[in-house]
Every structure is written in structure tokens, then in C-alpha cells.
């Protein structure tokens, strides 16, 4: 019973007539909305007032810019941490050398004491 009902509904919703009817209804609604919006935008632009869609587009661009800046900051952080590691590795032999020198100087004194 359940599967039969499902089959009938599926046949109906897959039929060309059904899909065309639904599509026509949706298309009509879409075009109606678009036309109304265009008229409204034209009026607002003539009055030199901001249009919502332009604001949305601008906001999207600002967000994109913000993310690109964050990405650059991330790269910068990565580079600076790499730099500090490199510097440390360069300094290491020097420090070690200084320690060695200090130890060498200290050695005879200790022996003398």
C-alpha cells in the first residue's frame, strides 16, 4: 500500500506535465521579483540613493579583502617564525663557541684552586 502510494506520487512528480507546471510557476515568480527589483533600483538610483544589492556586493568584496589580509598575516607569521628559527640555528654555534671559550678559561683556574 505504502509503496504503491509512493510509486504513484513519484510518477506524478516525475511527469513532464507536472514539472513544466511547477517550473512555469517558479519562473513566473522569479521574473516578477526581478522586474520589480529592477524598477525599484532604477528609482533609487535616480534619487542617488544606495541600492541594497550594491551594498551586498561591496560587503562581499570587503569580506574577500579581509580574508586575503588574514592570509597574508598568516604567511607573515609563518615567515617570522621561520626567521627566528633560522637565526637561532645561526647563533647556536657562536653561543656554543662562547661557552667553550669560557669553560677553557675557567679550567686552569679551577685546577689552580
Amino acid at each position: 500500500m505504502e509503496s504503491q502510494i509512493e510509486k504513484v506520487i513519484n510518477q506524478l512528480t516525475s511527469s513532464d506535465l507536472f514539472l513544466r507546471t511547477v517550473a512555469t510557476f517558479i519562473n513566473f515568480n522569479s521574473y516578477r521579483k526581478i522586474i520589480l527589483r529592477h524598477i525599484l533600483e532604477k528609482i533609487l538610483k535616480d534619487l542617488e540613493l544606495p541600492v541594497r544589492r550594491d551594498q551586498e556586493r561591496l560587503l562581499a568584496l570587503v569580506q574577500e579583502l579581509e580574508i586575503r589580509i588574514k592570509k597574508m598575516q598568516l604567511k607573515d607569521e609563518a615567515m617570522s617564525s621561520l626567521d627566528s628559527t633560522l637565526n637561532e640555528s645561526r647563533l647556536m654555534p657562536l653561543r656554543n663557541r662562547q661557552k667553550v671559550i669560557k669553560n677553557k678559561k675557567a679550567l686552569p683556574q679551577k685546577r689552580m684552586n
Partner: protein
Amino acid sequence: MDVDLTKGLALLEKTKNFDWAQDIHSFESEAEIVAEAGTLKLLKFNPQKMKARKPVLLIPSFINRHYILDLLPEKSLLQFYLNSGFQVYLLNWAEPQEEDQYLTFKKLFEVHLDYLFSKIRHVSKVQDFHIVGQCLGGSIGLIYSLLNPRHVCSLGLLTTPIDFNFGGQLKDWARHETLHLEKFIEARGNAPWLWMQLGFLGLKPTQILTKYIQFFKRRNETHFKRNFLALETWSFDNINVRGQFFLTLIQDFYQKNSWMNEKGFQLGSKNLQLANLKTPLFILNAEDDHIVPVESTLKKEHVPQVKSFKKFQVQGGHIGALIGSYSKKNIWPEMISWTLQIEKKVSPNEA
């Protein structure tokens, strides 16, 4: 707490008034938001004891809420990864705002995901990570793997459609020529969730009735009620789909069947083809899936060049196969052990 989750959380709050629904999980408080890109958020979860070397990124479908991957404490893929010692990142698509209607796939990968996924590598100090994508989240993981193979250690596709010629009734609807899709999106900005929900309900129109009859019959079983409520809360807690994403989904995936084309999936000037995929891969199929039929998922013959290919097939529907108790007992542990094996193979020296 996430601002964009207010609707979902409000729903959860309501459901908490029932004493048998006390434990519905609200995991957001445990997460750390490590990065944000527009409305997208990257959440990080740390395990109690780290066992895996590389983190795993969970990508839910971009047409649903992300908490399906952590629905209840005992039905949580996210918790399972955490308990297995993985650091987990979760991409929260969040409710799209008006400005999100202009976000194309090209910009998503070049700007948004590029930043968010770099952040994963930066925070976790790794060169690559595992990606597990659920449904259309798998398509996102697949595209990212093709664009940045060196940053993806392994890829998991959970009930992800690839061959849309076998897309079932959704394909028939999506390929009907009389609907002017671009005008539909131009008029509405983002695709309204109600249309999507009606589409899914229309696939099995009697299911909603039988489901509630079943619920009425088993209303005294606390465990059943709790699971039912959680799943219903999720399935009716929908988000709109970003306008350009919707167009890509219908035009590139359903109508052109891009992955199966010679040209492949076109992302800006790049042609992405399955033939170039080399990332170790596992897939999870649901035998009774009416949204993503088994025939439409990825097969070994689509990617013969992939050396590590593992396939799991489970009885159950689109969601049941993913978070059902059978999967938790039998499939999730295998997914974890496969992932750990891949980790060892890919970078044995790091062990």
C-alpha cells in the same frame, strides 16, 4: 556560542524541556573557533590524548547544518575521532548571509578555504591533514585534494555523489529544462532551504508519515525517542544554500555530470579530473540511500591510479549508514585504523 546557530540552538533548547531529551548534545561550547572567513567558521577540538600525528578535517555538506557529525554523544563521528586520538577540525558552513550569494566555488577555494586550511597547517604545525567529507562536503574535499594534493594526507568520502547520471529522481528534477535556474537564483539570492527540503521530502513522500507512526508506536522507548528527536531536529533545522553553490550543484554536477566528463570539473581556468587524483581514499556507501544512490558514488574504476582505495558499504539510508550503531561498531574503527595506516605509510620517518 555561535551567532548563526541561534535558530538551531533555540530548537535544541525547546527540545530540552522534555525530560527524555536531556542529553541532546551541544558540542559548540567545547570547540575553539580558530579562524573565520566570511560566514564560514573553522572549529577545533582537541583530544584528551593525542595519538595521531596529523589532524582530521571534517567537512559536512554545505546544504545542511554541521552538527550531524556530532549529533548525540553516542552518535558522534567527531567524538569518535577525538577518542581515537585525532585532533579534529570541523568546517561550519553556517547560515549564509545576503552577501554570500555572490560566493562562487572559485572564490571559495582561492580565498576562503585557502585561508582556513592554511590555518589548520599553521596551528597544528603540519604539512598535510586528513579530510573526511560528508555528502557534498566530500565534493569539497575532492576538489581541494585535486588542487592541493601535497596538503591532503588522505580523503574520506561519506555518501558523496560523483556520477550524477545515477542521481535518482533528484537528477530527473535537476535536469528538467523548463526551470530557469539562473533567474531563480537572481530573484532569491540564496536558494531557500524550503525548496531543498521539499525536494528531499518529495523523494519518499510517504516516509514522513510512516516515520511518525513508528514514533507513536515506540513512544515509550526512551532511547528511540531521544535518537528520533535529535535526528528530526537536525533534518528540519535547515540552512539556505549559497546562490552560486546551488548553481554549481545543479548545473555542473547534476546537469553536466562534470566528474564523469572528459573535461572534468571546471574551476575557473582549471580542469579538475578524477584521473589526476592520487590521494589515498576511502568511501562509505549506504545501500538504501535514496538521496545518493550507491551507483552514483565513487568506484575504484573511476580512479584506478589511486593506490590505497578502501570501500565500506553499509545497509541503511543516507544518514543512518553514517551515524547508525552498526557503523559505529564496525565501520568507524576500520576507518580510523585505515587512516592511521595511511599516516604511517605516507610519513614513516615521523613516527
